[in-house]
């Protein structure tokens, strides 16, 4: 059976239906780790004896059979966990025989065994083991969360900490804290520890959430679009103070202006925000702000800004500015962008 989301997975655990082989893979490591923890918790006693961890990169069929054929100790279930099950993808060094024999073995897995295979990244869906488990057990892929799913997940973490957050603040929080679940969870804990009130406000987020460079650049470009050179330069100096690299900052300014340029062009074609986002795939909050910002310009105007950036980029790279003056180059660029 194929499971799509974390919620579905938890439902199965709740109903205590989990047994037999299961594959968990995907790019969202945090969810994989969480799921592993949940599965481990099925074993209530003698975890050391009843959970066997194997390394999938260096494994023989005998290892697996040995682990599976020994009975659980003082428990009715036993977990055999093959980590880094690279043979699910086209891993070098793994013989076809292994995959074939292993897939045959899975078909007659003893009762009471949970055979857990985990892998970070993608699998080859034509792989024999994968095919067998898909029909006899469970297969779960965790793709990086986006949009509403992500929002729901973050909201739940806030609620777990006994806090309430509104939609606007929630979106703002996600924009500020980035999209890695681990990071988000840490930041949620931090904000919740900081806020003495029950409802999380924007001010709470501004005070403690670690501002990703993205969100700083975003604010900088926002100031530029309002022709507020003062603010933009003070953000720039804060970034340089944090030892961000000049070229990285410039690259990200260019990215923002480029997005504004694209959005402006789409708007001129009378496309709706949701249509635009089908191509650009941005956070809702980011998109709406970019639309607001890009309205301050024409397509031509944005083109000019881009060529100013290009000039600075060129000058930084060809040695016109000595390294003492990289900051100066960015400062003058911002002044010119704000004109």
């Amino acid at each position, binding site marked *: 059976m194929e499971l799509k989301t974390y919620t579905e997975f938890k439902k199965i655990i709740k109903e205590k239906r989990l047994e037999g082989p299961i594959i968990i893979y995907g790019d969202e490591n945090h969810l994989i780790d969480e799921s592993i923890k949940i599965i481990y918790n099925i074993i209530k006693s003698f975890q050391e004896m009843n959970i066997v961890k194997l390394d999938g990169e260096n494994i023989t069929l005998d290892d697996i059979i040995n682990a599976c054929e020994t009975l659980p100790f003082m428990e009715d279930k036993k977990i055999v966990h093959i980590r880094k099950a690279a043979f699910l993808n086209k891993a070098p060094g793994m013989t076809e025989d292994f995959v074939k024999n292993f897939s045959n073995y899975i078909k007659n897995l003893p009762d009471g065994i949970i055979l857990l295979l985990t892998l970070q990244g993608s699998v080859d869906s034509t792989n024999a083991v994968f095919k067998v488990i898909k029909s006899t057990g469970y297969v779960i892929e965790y793709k990086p969360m986006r949009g509403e799913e992500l929002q729901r997940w973050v909201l739940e973490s806030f609620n777990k900490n006994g806090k309430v957050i509104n939609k606007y603040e929630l979106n703002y929080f996600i924009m500020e804290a980035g999209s890695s679940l681990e990071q988000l969870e840490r930041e949620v804990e931090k904000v919740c520890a900081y806020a003495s009130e029950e409802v999380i406000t924007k001010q709470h987020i501004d*005070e403690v959430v670690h501002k990703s460079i993205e969100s700083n650049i975003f604010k900088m470009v926002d100031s530029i679009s309002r022709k507020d050179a003062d603010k933009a330069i003070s953000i720039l100096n804060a970034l340089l103070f944090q030892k961000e690299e000049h070229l990285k900052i410039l690259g990200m300014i260019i990215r923002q202006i480029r997005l504004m340029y694209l959005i402006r062009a789409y708007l001129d074609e009378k496309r709706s925000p949701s249509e635009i986002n089908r191509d650009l795939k941005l956070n809702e909050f980011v998109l709406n702000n970019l639309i607001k910002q890009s309205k301050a310009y024409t397509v031509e105007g944005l083109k000019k800004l881009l060529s100013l950036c290009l000039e600075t980029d060129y000058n930084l790279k060809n040695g016109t500015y000595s390294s003492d003056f990289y900051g100066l180059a960015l400062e003058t660029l911002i002044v010119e962008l704000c004109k």
Partner: protein
Amino acid sequence: MSYMALYREWRPKTFEDVIGQDHIVKTIKNQINSNRIPHAYLFCGTRGTGKTSTAKILSKAVNCLSPGDGGDPCNQCEACREINAGTAIDVVEIDAASNNRVENVRELIEDVKYPPHKMKYKVYIIDEVHMLSTSAFNALLKTLEEPPSYVIFILATTDPQKVPATILSRCQRFDFKRIRVEDIISRLKRITSENGVLADDRTLGVVARVSDGAMRDALSILDQAMSMSQGRIEYEDVVSMLGLTSNEHIFSLVDSMAEGNVEAAVKIIDEIILNGKDILQFIKDLTKHFRNLLMVKISKNPDEIIDASEDNIKMLKEQARRFRSEEIMRAIKIMVEAENDARYTTQPRILLEIAVIKFCKREYDTSPEIILSRINMLEEKIKSGAIAVKVEDVKDDKKKQEVKKHKNVDNKHEEPAIHESLADTVSDDVTIDEVRSSWQEVLNLLKANKKMVVYAYLEPGDVADVKGNIITIAFDEKFAFSKANLEKSDNKQIAEEYFSKILNKNVKLQFKVLERENTIDRSIELAKQILGEDKVEVIE
């Protein structure tokens, strides 16, 4: 008691003492109070913002035997005293800069396994964590992910960019802000008053500003100043100690650049060289000076982005008023270019001089930005009303009439005001060289003032002859229409007006069309001249 540096003596001992990091202190206190302490912290921020101090306080706070209400450590109990003295076995402080190898980390991991000896938590403070080698980071990873419940890791770094993302995502990250100037001042005030030293706000202000948001720097400077003073720290002493004396040369050079006074500027450069200053360094300083001028111009609160004394900033503000931002940008561009070139030359002085002259003599520059700034200057003049349209004195009345009469004989056009003002000039005679050299300037001025019609007609022409104050402009045959159009009174008047203005002499224009010579004949003639008559044969 042996001497202890101020920054060690005044290292914060409670959360209350940590300055300018309210957001962090509040969060950590709440975590301690609600007993939800994460197992790994990451403290980021530049030097002197309180990372290590906070880490130490935190290690005391979690282990304190009789903590205060707010989660502050008592600093009295055995645990606190041991940690303060650095003898606690359960609080381990590691300098990752010198213990950056895998072996060191393996030792640490081995140690983590054992529960604390006496205290509630085992705290590992790893300072400068970004210095760990890649393999050391990887070794740490696993332990950091699932440490035993009695262990707290506190990683401190000035450079979080160098810490791998896998480590970052396992720690709760706190960013220490640079401490605000006011906060530093109030802390310095407390220290000076407790040490019985006098210092006014202005003096402490310089110290705070120069320390760039780092408390430790501020305290070191204060320490130095205190040891120099006899119970009273003087502003001047601090300024000279820090080498902040406003660079007279730079200010006066930029002043003369603002006036466009090349002579004075070059003289100052000469003086600088006599003083033995390195030119390359001076160009850099000059560039930074212009940068500061720009920042002063743009920012409402420049103190944060300029490291200089209050007086200096005041002077900068004063001087910035003499420039438009475009001018400053132009200066920066010229200086950066000069600095770049100066690196590869043995004659940096010449480059500096050229740069200064380039800035002063804008009329040599025809790039669009310069034209724009020149228009700006004109606009300003018009706004201020100080346009140099000379009004004749009564005494000159007679002379003026004479001139007028004379002119009326010359041509019957009405004279515009501008010509009258030029009537004073001693002689209106010009030479052909003068006219030729100002030709381009006239064209530029026409273009800048949007006299495009006249510009377009005049452009293909060439100065053919000058007699007295009459300039003859010749056109090729195919531009004969130019001549025809320029002879229309409006256009001619404009053209004459501009020539007069640039040459500063009252001139008249004549136009003629060059007759096309027989080009083939001329070529033959030329060929004969060069090769000799006998070598050329013309085949019809």
